């Protein structure tokens, strides 16, 4: 029983990292119907900036994180401006391909810096001994991940329900043409979505870096794991990103906890989410919370 509970707890913790990574992805899709294949690169760059500020500039790690999130806001805006804005109105295949190209450009840029070949970890900033609840262990890094997820969700919720821009974003998500006609700037909204994606990616990268170390390929790989999460939760649902993230996190843990021993070589945790994804696409294509598009003829 403890084993099971432990798997659940770890699953929730890991899942909240996925949720963080998926949040930005969903925001971009929700506002502009773009699938972002560069989410992993954003995660990596966010983590590297934080590392650079902490280790090379010698700043406090939390301050570094805050500055990195700020810088990533600018990067997100910049990416939208340079790469995505010229693509508004283009066929969706082109737009998706732009994000694939963007991923390539971003990782190329990382290789122009020493981060390209870096393997490092953040200086330890949390207590070494983990939290214990009975037999169940929760690492401090996991707790940070959960807390960051909660913070990001609360800020987003506040933003969407209270601020004018947030309401504009919701309007654009509902109907681009209509919001255009009432004077909402969709460019501004798209840019904001990208900025938010870059910011939440930074937070995710920070947690991943704290837990497993910083390495370009490993950080980029987290970007791929976003896909099962968003398919489960629904591509355009923020609540779905959270629930999807945590569900996938738990399923992954349960798979490696109970299935690995029956599979030669194990590693079911890595592929299980994608199997779920395929099954979901066959039976519940719009996810748990996604909106089904009704076609008007």
């Amino acid at each position, binding site marked *: 029983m403890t*084993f099971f509970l*432990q*798997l659940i707890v*770890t699953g929730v*913790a*890991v899942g909240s*990292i996925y949720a963080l990574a998926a949040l930005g992805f969903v925001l971009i899709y929700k506002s502009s119907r773009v699938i972002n294949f560069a989410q992993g690169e954003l995660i990596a760059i966010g983590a590297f900036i934080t590392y650079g500020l902490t280790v090379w500039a010698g700043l406090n790690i939390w301050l570094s994180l805050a500055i990195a999130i700020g810088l990533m806001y600018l990067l997100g805006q910049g990416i939208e401006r340079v790469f995505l804005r010229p693509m508004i109105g283009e066929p969706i295949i082109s737009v998706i391909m732009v994000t694939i190209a963007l991923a390539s450009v971003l990782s190329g840029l990382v*290789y122009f810096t020493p981060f*390209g*070949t*870096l*393997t*490092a*970890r953040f200086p*330890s900033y949390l207590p*070494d*001994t*983990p939290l214990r609840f009975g037999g169940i*262990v929760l*690492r401090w890094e996991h707790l940070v991940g959960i807390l960051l997820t909660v913070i990001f969700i609360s800020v987003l919720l506040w933003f969407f329900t209270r601020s004018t821009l947030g309401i504009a974003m919701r309007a654009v998500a509902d109907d681009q043409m209509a919001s255009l006609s009432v004077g909402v700037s969709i460019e501004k909204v798209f840019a904001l979505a990208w900025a938010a994606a870059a910011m939440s990616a930074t937070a995710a990268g920070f947690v*991943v870096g704290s*837990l*497993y*170390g910083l*390495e370009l*390929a*490993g950080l980029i*790989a*987290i970007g791929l*794991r976003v896909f099962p999460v968003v398919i489960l939760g629904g591509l355009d649902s923020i609540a779905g990103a959270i629930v999807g993230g945590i569900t996938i996190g738990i399923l*992954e*843990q349960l798979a*490696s*906890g109970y299935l*690995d*021993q029956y599979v*030669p*070589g*194990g*590693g079911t*945790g*890595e592929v299980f989410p994608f199997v779920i994804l395929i099954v979901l696409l066959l039976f519940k294509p719009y996810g748990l919370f996604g909106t089904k598009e009704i076609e008007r003829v």
Partner: protein
Amino acid sequence: MKLYIRLFFSLVVFALLGLGLAQQEIVFGWSGAVTGPTSDAGRFVLQAIDDYCRYANEEQLIPGYTVNCITRDDQYNNDNTLRNFEAYLDEGMVAFIGYSTGGTLQLKVNALEEEIPVIGSSLHIGVIDPPDNDFMFLPISSYSEQVLALLEWIADNYQGEGAPKVAIISHPSAFGRAPVEDARNAAELLGVEIVEVQETGEGLDYTAMLQRWSAAGVQYVIGQNVQSPIAAMLNAAQALGLKDSMTFMGAHYTGGETLTNLAGDAAEGFLWATSYYLESEGTPGMVLQREIGERYGRSEETITDTNYTTGLLQAAIYVEVARRAAAAGEVSSQSIYEALMSMNGVNAFDSGFGVGPVSFGEGDRVGVDAMRLIQVQDGEWQPITEPYNSRTFPQVHPLN
């Protein structure tokens, strides 16, 4: 008419000159990952190859010849490796240094058909297993032998009741899977129980895995992986308080400075099997390593890295065989191959980088046969054995 004759003769002279010059140059090719997966190791190997070749030319290690080492990134992509290999053939390559497991395995048939010797960084035993193995060489002992040595150490040092319980964490690739089968066979011989083999690459969390192992009573964990997942696992083990009940160890690519840097305290007690000396030991080979690294302005990180040693050893072996071939006559892939195959007995080559002499010959395609176990003690890597060979390996995996 006279003009034509003169032109003709000058052409002949130029051609001969060109031929003469070409003979003076020995081309070695290296293709490995400077970007993409495993590039953290690959870039050090590349720097070492470049450096050693420069060093060989500056010191005129092969009198009358210059060494030209062509090094190109293949992004861990086999298509690129094969393309580089053929590009080097166009450049007159006489011997090739491979890198990735996949690329080297795929090169076997090409090496055979082109009769070009290949030394790789991959220590996959399949590289030198038949078929098509005639031109394939390993610089140091294979992953299989390293893992078997660790299993032997477990069998020898285990003091509890029943059979010691071992789990293997391997990389999700041919590289990671290389020693698994041999390990299972050896474990049977040694009376060690392999509870589970788990493949983990960019897996996010090791908590479930470690707890499952802990519940199953695993006492030893052997890694056949690269440093960062091992470091993440060690951190998780420390967080879970499993460091007392489990001993962690690993084959060649798990250890080194990178591991201690990444894992910090959690690396304490980690046991590592390798055939290289450590830079900190200050043996003659390591003094040379530092000298070469400093001469070409390499960072401290590079100089102390084992992968830098890997590259130096590979280049040194080829430079040595080329020297011998040159002394005996002309340098060609054929003469290099023959020099490699006679590098044994009194002709064995003591490079100083490995813990034993490099020897090749019929039935011996492993350069430095011996290895040592090295442990992290108070944050430093300390050898805990003398150089030795695995005793079970010849039984489990007879070579030729």
